């Protein structure tokens, strides 16, 4: 049977979690905002190299403005976490480091990838100083709209999880 891993996508409301998954799985994007209620599950088989693939079972959780409010039960047995913030909305990253600390506590010993999304909405130069000023170290800067770095981010996580087994 196919090797499979559970990953969860976390982050505040409207940062683009569902859009990132949509872009990755279906290579499409919609401007309409459909609030995720509860959990949505999608699957994508990712080729990690020429002769190895892994299936990612992606749990798209409803957004919460309080990271602390995430249902712990949804995080059980997860193999990887993606934490998304919206580079165009400071309220989604002002407390990023303390948010990340909480996430790390909730999912100990689990790879965590930090993603700044919607980079199409900001000017590149301003973005760098914005991150620096807020003391943020993002692993990936993406746009679900243009598709920038979305595949790279998910494939990187898949490879990481594949190497861990």
């Amino acid at each position, binding site marked *: *049977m*196919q090797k*499979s*891993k*559970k990953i969860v996508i976390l982050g505040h409301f409207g940062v683009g979690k569902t859009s990132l998954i949509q872009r990755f799985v279906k290579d499409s994007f919609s401007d309409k905002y459909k609030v995720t209620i*509860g*959990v949505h*599950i*999608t*699957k994508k088989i990712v080729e990690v190299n020429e002769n190895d693939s892994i*299936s990612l*079972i992606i*749990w798209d959780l409803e957004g919460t403005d309080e990271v602390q409010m995430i*249902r712990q*039960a*949804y995080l*059980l*047995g*997860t*193999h990887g976490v993606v934490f998304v913030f919206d580079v165009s909305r400071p309220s989604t990253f002002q407390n990023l480091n303390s948010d990340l600390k909480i996430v790390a506590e909730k999912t100990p*010993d689990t790879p965590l990838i930090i993603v700044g999304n919607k980079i199409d909405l900001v000017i590149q130069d301003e973005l760098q100083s914005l991150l620096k000023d807020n003391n943020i170290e993002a692993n990936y800067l993406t746009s679900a709209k243009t598709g920038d770095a979305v595949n790279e981010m998910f494939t990187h996580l898949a490879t990481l999880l594949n190497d861990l087994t």
Partner: protein
Amino acid sequence: MNEKDRLEILKDILFTEDREDIDKIANRIELLEQAYNSREKFASRVDPIVEEQLDKFTKSIPHTLGPTITATLKKEIQNHKDEVVDALYPVLGKMVKKYVAQEIKVLSEKIDNQLSFISAWKRKLRSFFGGSKEKELLLDDIGGEKIEQVMLIERGSGLLKASFSKTETIDEEMISGMLTAIKTFVEDAFNQKNQELELIEYELYNIHIQSFVNYYVAVVISGAYSLKAKDKVQDIIFDFYHNFMEMNLDLIYTSRHLEQPVDTISSKLIQKKLAEYFGNAKI
């Protein structure tokens, strides 16, 4: 000197040395004999003592070694609580279930006895008005339920470990993820830690869920799902888990963050077992 004396003298001269040797040997034999005898004497005195000590020792094991053994066992059980529960749960579950089922059977038989004449009349009336035969009506009561699909799913992660299906279905990995999300949500929302979601009704199907410590089994059933069938399904699940899964605790270990990975039984084998247990089961 007569003939005889002379012979003796001659003997003396010729055999002195031999004589001495023979004496020495005789002495030795005597010594050995003594040693042997005293040893036998010794043994006959010592053996009972050793035997008695051995007997005492054996009898004292429960007091001397016993606590150590018990403590070790206790520690082992404490360190592997989940595994122990997983091993015991099917047995206990079946016992409790059997007991409750028996009680209910007795109760319903009592009720049946009281009601049987009414239902007999009802059937008669129905056949009278509907024109169908009594026997056919009785057959109506037997549901056409069938096991369509079985999935062994890791709790929490919702990852599919193995599955068996009679017909091609939509992506089972997705189904097992969704089932787990629904189960998690329901159990979490009602915040009843000890309450587990048992049944999901979905269109024409009933999905029977039985949780164990690290895994849960989901059985998809088509047709009307009667209590009797539910009872059967539960039994099959418990049998499968009891006979197969708990013998393979290494399967459980893999879900943990173990320092060294353990060889797991292959999904293929579990798949085969699922087919064996659920494939031809009459419910």
